């Protein structure tokens, strides 16, 4: 059995004239937690529905376990889904909802009882077997939906924004539980969300999608620290993006000054985009800073203050700091070479990876 469980080969999905998924290629490995991340309408749910078999690709092939499943209907695929609205059957109680898949497979009654009880135990609902769905809260329904998916022992569980209907506190709690559940079960989870924090916290691998194309894939730290383009940098966390150009390897120029950095493989004087994360900027006095800015507004965010500042070239700089400064005061910003990340304009993911490999050796 190979380690790859899902493979997409040049998959395109179009409705009439609108292309929702444009020539997508990727692989998903066994036992990991994957997240498809992107704004609404980016095609992430389409990928999920293609894997589940609710829709068929317009062109290209979907493989499960190295077998092309284009012609295999949803009810014969070894995949189970947790839906955004949970899709629990209102005419069945908790036990029967979870047992639905097992009953279809004609599993023996004693085994059904045992497996349903186990699945409910996994999601901490063992006391609720005889409850009606209408008597359960949102968080509890969520757990029933998860139990209903895992009771069939699928190789892959698909989760379609399952936490979006919960309040913030419950959502954070469920994030921990989902992650732990995936690790205990050791099966592959593919999770769809538009919430970047959720994606960073949960995933082994993230696919960032926009306009039907996978923009970048990688571990949360890779994607956060080395975004491939403006969209990814903007979508994952807050970032300061300014135009600049590369003077030579390890030396970049922006805001009318040159700075040391750790990026290589560019042409001389190539125009680039420079990213510095707000939390990597350190506040000092105007004289000591590498850049001098004027504070325009300040917001208290709880853990830190968020300051919006402008330098003399009208570039906006977002700064996160626990230090409070006065509005309209002039401050200096300090940062190390590691804090600077350079993006080549219009670079594809393959080119990006190649360039990274070239100078990391």
């Amino acid at each position, binding site marked *: 059995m190979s380690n790859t469980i899902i493979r997409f080969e040049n998959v395109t999905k179009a409705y009439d004239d609108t292309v929702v998924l444009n020539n997508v290629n990727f692989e998903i490995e066994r036992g990991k937690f994957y997240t498809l991340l992107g704004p609404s309408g980016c095609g992430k749910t389409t990928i999920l529905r293609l894997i589940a078999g609710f829709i068929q690709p317009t062109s290209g092939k979907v493989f499960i376990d190295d077998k092309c499943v284009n012609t295999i209907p949803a*009810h014969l695929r070894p*995949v189970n889904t947790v839906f955004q609205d949970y899709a*629990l059957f209102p*005419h069945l109680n908790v036990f029967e909802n979870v047992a639905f898949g097992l009953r279809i*497979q004609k599993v023996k009654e004693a085994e059904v009882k045992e497996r349903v009880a186990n699945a409910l135990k996994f999601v901490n609902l063992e006391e609720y077997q005889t409850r009606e769905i209408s*008597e359960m809260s949102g968080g509890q329904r969520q757990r029933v939906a998860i139990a209903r998916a895992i009771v069939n022992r699928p190789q892959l569980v698909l989760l379609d924004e399952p936490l979006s209907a919960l309040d913030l506190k419950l959502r954070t709690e469920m994030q921990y539980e989902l992650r732990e559940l995936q690790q205990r079960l050791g099966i592959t989870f593919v999770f769809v969300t538009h919430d970047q924090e959720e994606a960073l916290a949960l995933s082994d691998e993230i696919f960032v999608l926009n306009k039907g194309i996978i923009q970048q894939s990688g571990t949360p730290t890779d994607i956060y620290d080395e975004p491939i383009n403006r969209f990814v940098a903007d979508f994952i966390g807050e970032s300061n993006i300014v135009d600049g150009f590369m003077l030579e390897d390890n030396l970049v120029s922006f805001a009318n000054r040159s700075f040391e950095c750790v990026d290589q493989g560019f042409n001389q004087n190539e125009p680039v985009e420079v990213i510095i994360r707000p939390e990597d900027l350190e506040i000092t006095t105007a004289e000591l800073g590498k850049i001098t800015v004027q504070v325009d507004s300040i917001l208290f965010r709880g853990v830190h203050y968020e300051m919006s500042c402008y330098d003399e070239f009208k570039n906006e700089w977002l700064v996160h700091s626990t230090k409070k400064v006065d509005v309209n005061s002039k401050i200096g910003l300090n940062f190390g070479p590691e804090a600077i990340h350079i993006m080549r304009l219009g670079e594809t993911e393959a080119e990006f990876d190649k360039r990274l490999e070239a100078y990391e050796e």
Partner: protein
Amino acid sequence: MEQTKKWFANGYLILVFVILYAPILFLTAYSFNSGGSMVGFDGFTLEWYQELFSDTRLLIIVLNTLVIALISATIATIVGVAGAVAIHNIEKTKYRSMLLTLNNILVVSPDVIIGASFLILFTMLGISLGFFSVLLSHIAFSIPIVVIMILPKLKEMSPTLVDAAQDLGASQWQVFSKVILPYILPGVFAGFFTALTFSLDDFAVTFFVTGNGFNTLAVEVYSLARQGISLKINALSTIIFAITLALVLGYYFLSTRKKPKTLGGTD
């Protein structure tokens, strides 16, 4: 001010119901009249009821009516469920609304026209008029009603329920029998009972397509009434009214008792 308004509202409501039920009550009262006509109440008697139960011909007609109603409502419900699901599943809105309109036209078109067109159809096809022709036409005019009663339930159902059932391994038939059917069951029952009542009290269509000595109650009562009124009809009407009332009350108590508990619902 508020008080008088309430009195007026209640009084009005009572008046409306009295006017609506007065003819039935009038008819019921005279079914116990020993006078033999509907002019002046002479004394209490159960004579008309006795006469009714000894009239086998009339009882057979009652039985015919019930048999036609039950069979036609059952078949119409089965066909109607299939039709509603099919209409619901049509993806192109244009075709779906077209079919729905065709369905609705059948519901609103006058019985006389439906009856006449069935008569023409049956004569053309050479189907002899009698039990079978009445049954066929009752099935036909009941189907659109059943479809209309079931469609809202289907519309209300979240499409992810079907996805979820498929996802859990249910074949198309299992999706229907284990998820869709239980969900729309209230609509199916409502459709069945509506079809039943439509069939029971249909006069116009049956009047056209019956023949060969086969009669249903509505047509029979009509022809009896033309010959001169016997209080036997009053007795029969009273019994039917009592049974209907009992059924409605029974349905009411069953449906209020089975309502799901709403306390402690969400969160």
